[in-house]
């Protein structure tokens, strides 16, 4: 059956929004844990600023709330419908995109999208102080997992499924790169702090936010170092959120499209270039280039791949 370009775009964005909601929940987790650690200079560390940066909505936040205060950040990342990337906005957008392509979704997938939106609406009506942060975070992760699970387990493996997954993996690559970038670039500009206890703690927090601290230990063991973390989140194929995993998954789904449609496009070529590059480099290469420079470039390349996919498949112009 034919897939309308516009519907392919809706499916692509369902994937992206589910992943984006999850990223926000993980950022909340990072911020919350860091806020529990006493600052050396007295008081508590204010890391909420970096959390907001990582979410890519710093400007929006400042316009509405001004200084980063924990309570506002929670609202901003979780409930706020003015923030198009908040969990509420993402779940609503995922459901709205889903409503448009209802006919391309299984009832289980639709249920998962619809239920999350309904529950969020109910949650919004509750007294804020009665909602625990961990409840918000766990709920988001569970809902996102349920959506991904229904997509994975119930959707027909046709082109629409590929577009959902391509959206999901591009978004995940983007969020992994951003999270790493913020941590490295914003928080640890001074080289002398690298390797200190505090640094260690923050790196661990990243792993925790990625639900990956145990996996990390299993894969590497021993001391947590920036090199190991970078390797795990960029180059390790065992890590479900590493850049290379995301790129390979996106590439795999693009190849399926090329086979189904009987023609390969610039999108496949570009995706393969990214995978090939990530396969060849080592973590030393990354640090030689400069982690920030490397991540900036990767974020840009992911963005370019997304716009190629848009012009090749989602405009319906190409013949």
């Amino acid at each position, binding site marked *: 059956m034919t897939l*309308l370009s516009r519907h392919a775009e809706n499916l692509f964005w369902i994937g992206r929004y589910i992943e984006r909601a999850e990223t926000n929940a993980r950022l909340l987790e990072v911020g919350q844990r860091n806020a529990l650690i006493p600052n050396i200079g007295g008081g508590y560390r204010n890391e909420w600023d970096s959390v907001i940066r990582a979410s890519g909505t710093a400007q929006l936040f400042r316009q509405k709330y001004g200084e980063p205060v924990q309570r506002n950040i929670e609202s901003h990342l979780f409930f706020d419908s003015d923030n198009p990337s908040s969990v509420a906005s993402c779940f609503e957008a995922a459901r709205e995109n889903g409503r448009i392509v209802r006919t391309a979704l299984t009832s289980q997938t639709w249920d998962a999208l619809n239920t999350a939106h*309904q529950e969020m609406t109910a949650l919004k009506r509750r007294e804020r102080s009665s909602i625990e942060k961990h409840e918000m975070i766990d709920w988001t992760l569970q809902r996102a997992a349920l959506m991904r699970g229904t997509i994975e387990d119930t959707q027909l493996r046709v082109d629409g499924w590929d577009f959902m997954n391509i959206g999901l993996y591009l978004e995940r690559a983007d969020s992994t790169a951003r999270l790493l970038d913020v941590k490295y670039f914003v928080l640890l500009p001074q080289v002398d702090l690298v390797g200190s206890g505090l640094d260690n703690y923050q790196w661990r927090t990243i792993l925790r936010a990625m639900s990956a601290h145990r996996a990390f230990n299993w894969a590497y063991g021993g001391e947590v170092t920036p090199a190991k973390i970078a390797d795990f989140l960029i180059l390790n194929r065992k890590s479900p959120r590493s850049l290379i995993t995301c790129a390979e998954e996106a590439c795999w789904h693009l190849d399926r499209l090329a086979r189904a*449609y009987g023609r390969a496009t610039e999108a496949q070529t570009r995706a393969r270039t990214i995978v090939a590059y990530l396969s060849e480099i080592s973590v030393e290469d990354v640090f030689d280039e400069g982690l920030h420079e490397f991540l900036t470039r990767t974020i840009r390349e992911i963005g370019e791949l997304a716009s190629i996919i848009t012009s090749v*498949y989602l405009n319906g112009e190409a013949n």
Partner: protein
Amino acid sequence: MGNAYFNEMYDGSEVRVPYEGLSGWADGMPAEFRSLKQTEAEALFRRIGITFAVYGEGGDPDRLIPFDMFPRVFAADEWRKLERGIKQRARALNAFLLDVYGRGEIVKAGQIPSRLVYRNEAFEHAAVGFKPPRGVYSHIVGIDLVRTGPDEFYVLEDNCRTPSGVSYMLENREIMMRMFPQLFQENRIAPVEGYPQLLKRTLASVAPDKCEGEPTIAILTPGHFNSAYYEHSFLADMMGVELVEGQDLFASGDFIYMRTTEGPKRVDVIYRRIDDAFIDPLCFRPDSMLGIPGLMNAYRSGAITIASAPGAGVADDKAIYTFVPDMIRFYLGEEPILNNVPTWQCGKKDDLKYVLDNLPELVVKEVHGSGGYGMLVGPKSTKAQIETFRAKIEEDPGNYIAQPTLSLSTCPTFVEEGVAPRHVDLRPYCLVGERIELVPGGLTRVALTEGSLVVNSSQGGGVKDTWVMAE
């Protein structure tokens, strides 16, 4: 007062034949079980996303139309007569449309005033002189009926453009079967589930001559913000056809194509759920963003079929309605099987006088109104309301028609205190293509407020599953 209305289930204390299978069903239902089922039904409706937005009312766009679990039942022989009458009417309406966009014989014969046809807002110049495939203009005819006695049915209005609500007919049945399977084991109820495939077959049968092979059919929707979007996507899904918006289609050369991930794909039949005025900015409203530039030219040159055909609206105008019995006699040489409600045209002097003298007994409607808005139900209105309405009629009489207040039949309905009679109407959906088809059923709307005769969902009406007993 209650005795003045025809009760479809009870004839005095006797249960009428079609309802025998439901005798005792509701009475034996514990209140707790019933409210449990009602909650379950609501959850099901909400889960499948079948909600509607009321025009101009604001509020919750995800509101549900209240569903009443007590079915409305027709006996096989009752339905047979209805079916004949509905098909007859659908045939005559299509003959009328083909005629007025062709030679206009019925006007020349003096059967219908030419003014009502050619000066009608819904008469499309752009359709004149074109014979659509198989001569069909209105492919889905929704006919609104009310019942006033065992053998008395009246047609309230015809809907020749894009009658909505058929998804409720189908979903109401699905939900009843899911919640009360035993009812369907104990009673032989004719299925309605074949409707989407019948609709698809009907549309395929009117594919244009230029179509090669299996026709590609698409449903054209104004978009997901439209209140009937659920229905559009539901039908597309059940029929296995694409649901498109204007932006998904484009004209090139002789044909209309849809944008797909594999490139342009030709479309042969469009079932549009958009008004004429918006389907092509090059022919109708130039500011329309919903349509497809070039669609009308492709249609007129025989490259694509549009269902319903542009211009079909001239047949379901309230002023034309009065003449449908004449159409049946003129085109089919038959006597009408279903009655029209006697109608006074306020634009006519004598009629206007009668209407103004008898307002408390009449129902007055706007000629182009719909959804129960802008109408007066005389017997249910206060003196002040009647006087306000009188002023409106006097200001623009041509804009109003009046009908006697009909004694709408009642059907048992679940209410707060148990089960009580409530007024109902019926909208069956007749399909016109190579053949004329009617699934045994329709949408029953029920006025949930005691004594109310307004069944529109926008005015507090609900819906019921409609059963036709199998032979």
